[in-house]
């Protein structure tokens, strides 16, 4: 169970999110500038929010990012450009190396440089890199935003495989179809506050 009680002043409003997430995959939707990425970065520890972020009974809000055990895949994936795929993947650990490489079909990419990868391949490597740290929560910020339409379905399939690993996931998206396909719970954020939440089918109407 994940309990969020997060407050963070932003430029035009204050992010104030209070919710309890019981489901494995939560879709976080809302218009641009509604505070989705700020919320994700607060949970990851990259922004100093106040309140409580409770994961498996432990409040992590005062912990630095490296001690939260939260996997974060940002929108731009941010693969380390000076490390090849294998070294990117194992940067934070390699406990699940074989599993992750198999699930995300990364074996043919291991010795390649990030600059030589396609958008979808970069997303898979970033997903794998975060999973290698054995996180207790995964945060994905619009993982399909930069992916061309024909490749989205394939990447969605990979995301389902990640979901099936059983790691809780908060998934930022603009696309209702993505939310319906992956998530079992949905939070709609507007101007930093939860405007609606529930199963994606009913929440997204």
């Amino acid at each position, binding site marked *: 169970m994940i309990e969020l009680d997060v407050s963070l002043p932003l430029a035009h409003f204050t992010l104030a999110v209070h919710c309890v997430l019981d489901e494995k995959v939560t879709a976080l939707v809302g218009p641009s500038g509604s505070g989705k990425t700020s919320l994700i970065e607060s949970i990851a520890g990259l922004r100093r929010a106040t309140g409580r972020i409770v994961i498996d009974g432990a409040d992590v809000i005062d912990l630095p990012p*490296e001690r939260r055990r939260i996997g*974060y895949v940002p929108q731009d994936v*941010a693969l*380390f450009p*000076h490390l090849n795929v294998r070294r990117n993947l194992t940067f934070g650990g390699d406990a699940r190396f074989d599993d992750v490489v198999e699930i995300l079909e990364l074996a043919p990419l291991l010795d390649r440089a990030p600059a030589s990868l396609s958008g979808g391949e970069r997303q898979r490597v970033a997903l794998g890199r975060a999973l290698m740290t054995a996180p207790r929560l995964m945060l994905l910020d619009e993982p399909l935003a930069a992916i061309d339409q024909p490749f989205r379905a394939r990447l969605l399939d990979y995301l389902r495989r990640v979901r099936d690993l059983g790691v809780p996931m908060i998934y930022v998206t603009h696309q209702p179809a993505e939310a319906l396909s992956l998530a079992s719970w949905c939070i709609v954020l507007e101007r930093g506050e939860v405007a609606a939440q529930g199963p994606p089918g009913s929440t997204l109407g």
Partner: protein
Amino acid sequence: MADIPVVLFTLKMAAISTLIIAPLALALAAWSWRAGAKGLLLDAVGALPLVVPPTAIGFVLLELLSRRAPLGRMLDRAGIDVLFTPKAVVIACGVMAFPLMFTAFRVAIETTERRYFDIARTLGATPLRAFGRVTLPLAWRGLLSGVLLAFCRALGEFGATILIAGNIPGRTQTLALAIYDRVQSGRDAEAGALVVWVVVIAWLFVAASGLLIAQQRKRFAA
């Protein structure tokens, strides 16, 4: 060929001073980067020798290292002679080259994008490990460029050096001091030859530094 010893001595002094200030400049640049707005104060202090006259810096060093000052007395009691020795040349070169190196390091670190550092931390790296494994390797060209620029600055150092190291041929005389010495004694041809040495060495290092900066920019503009 008579110039070779003074050229070698100058290269040696510049190299030693550059090596000594590099870890300090890196540590301060990293701290300033992490400190964000608070680091601006440190940036200004670090850049001071860049704008204060070298003779003023030399005077401050002279006061600090003289036997009248606690530091000078302490060194004297430990049997360490600094003023008017090659050690003073290293100190003067180091202090005067420091701001260039610090500023170049700051810029090099800044251009690596803090994002990579942040992501490394979400992957379990402590700030020190994230800096060492991600930020530094990404910034290496800019850092090396800073080292080369500082080395060149140390090569040409004059004002602070003459105040605390004097101009003793064969002991503390560097290329810049030797040029001054030759001009003062009307040996213009010899001064000209020394100028050629300085210009060629400095040009090589500044060109290498410029090349590294261009590569760094290109890498992160891509």
